């Protein structure tokens, strides 16, 4: 693959307190047009890794480079290239959908002339056309999740980071969001963490698996599928990882 690298992380480490290591020595690379799936058991360090990639949490060691900008040295330029949906969508519950999304667009330096267009596109992509004037707090969980995704993509970032994007959605909504992620994967790079293995099978070009904060597998989803189905492969990798520890 020769597409340009949009995000690379080198030896990321994060400790909570003196002894507890949440993430240790994780390196990864992402190219334009790639969808990367991040797998792992609960507490494996998925969310912590994603937070470090987006600048929400400073790493204790290691560096993150986004679109050739070092996240620690040129945070403003690097952060402009990234859209992030955290585990808990960062929504101001008392704002209207339109006002909130416009605020997110302004925060990410979308030029004033293009804001209306960006707003319309983000709403259309996330199926929010009918919710413009609604107050976010009154929306259902699934719609709130969509608003969360809309704020992450409104500035058309080169890298989209989604932490469990389909949690709490109904099957039809999951299908819509997956279509959206595939669409995003054409123009940008996407990283998503998930527990749903069929999601990975359907969406991701590459997969990495974390266990106890360490990277134990990195390869294409085709490689994982080679020895049977995804679930067997995942369990085999994580269990042998646990045995090897």
């Amino acid at each position, binding site marked *: 693959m020769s597409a340009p690298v949009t995000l690379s992380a080198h030896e990321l480490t994060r400790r909570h307190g003196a002894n507890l290591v949440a993430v240790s020595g994780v390196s990864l690379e992402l190219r334009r047009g790639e969808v990367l799936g991040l797998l792992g058991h609960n507490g494996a360090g998925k969310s912590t890794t994603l937070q470090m990639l*987006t*600048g*929400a*949490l*400073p790493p204790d060691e290691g560096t993150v480079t986004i679109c050739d900008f070092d996240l*620690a040295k040129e*945070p*403003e*330029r*690097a*952060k*402009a290239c*990234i859209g*992030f949906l*955290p585990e*808990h969508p*960062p*929504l*101001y*519950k*008392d*704002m209207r959908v339109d*006002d909130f999304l416009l*605020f*997110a667009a*302004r*925060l*990410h*330096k979308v030029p004033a002339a293009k804001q209306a267009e960006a707003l319309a596109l983000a709403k259309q992509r996330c199926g929010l056309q009918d919710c413009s004037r609604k107050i976010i707090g009154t929306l259902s969980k699934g719609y709130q999740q969509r608003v969360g995704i809309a*704020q992450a993509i409104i500035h058309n970032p080169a890298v989209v980071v989604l932490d469990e994007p389909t949690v709490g959605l109904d099957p039809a909504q999951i299908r819509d969001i997956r279509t959206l992620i595939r669409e995003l994967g054409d123009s940008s790079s996407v990283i998503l963490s998930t527990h749903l293995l069929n999601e990975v099978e359907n969406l991701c070009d590459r997969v990495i698996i974390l266990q106890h904060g360490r990277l134990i597998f990195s390869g294409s989803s085709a490689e994982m599928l080679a020895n049977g189905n995804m679930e067997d492969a995942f369990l085999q990798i994580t269990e042998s990882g646990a045995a090897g520890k």
Partner: protein
Amino acid sequence: MIYTIAKKEFRSLFAAPSTWLMLALLQFLFAWFYFARMDDYLQIQAQLAHLDNAPGATIAVAAPLCGALALMLMLLIPLFTMRVIAEERRNQTWVLLLTAPVSAAHIVLGKFFGLLALLAIIICGCAAMLATLLLGTHADLGLMLANLGGVLLLAASYAALGLYLSALSKQPIIAASSALGLSFGLWMLEMSSSDNRSFLRALSPNAHFQNLNMGLINSADLIYFALFITTLLWLTIRQLNDERRHGL
């Protein structure tokens, strides 16, 4: 960018029902004080008329009212400042600002000015009430404006203090109570000092407000307020930068 954040901050403070409740309570208390003061003044007015250079309505009514307003704002501002950073942390909306391409200075100044706009509206409401004095008497406009300016500076100082304490904590209630405790402590420094020249008294924003309350615009007081506000805003920016580098 500062404007974007300030506007959002102002609008979300203004959209909260609790803000309206507090505004209504403040107006009610202020109106009550106003009538009580007015009543007192009218009772002694006949005796005052015999004096040469008798105190006018402005100094007898407006100045003490501004003193009361300063005290009420001191109690009220921590309730606003706790929402500004600490509550965003608890509601996990802070991540949005943290991962956006915005510097800590822009966040802090945006939040400060958004809050200040709301405080200015509160003060304007009270100023409008004081302006009714103009209907019945020949008020001392200079004294009144010095008082209102003083209240605004004092409110800005308490807001900067509250903002810093809000940046230090994850719990809104801790942010509010520590801001209230500290501003009350500073107020006590002024109240308890027997000597007008004492060093401790000079630390208190309220002591510097006293001069403006008497209509005395002193450059030393203005410099004090500017220093107090900029120091606290700078500390807040530093705190947020440290947090971005090392985590909270």
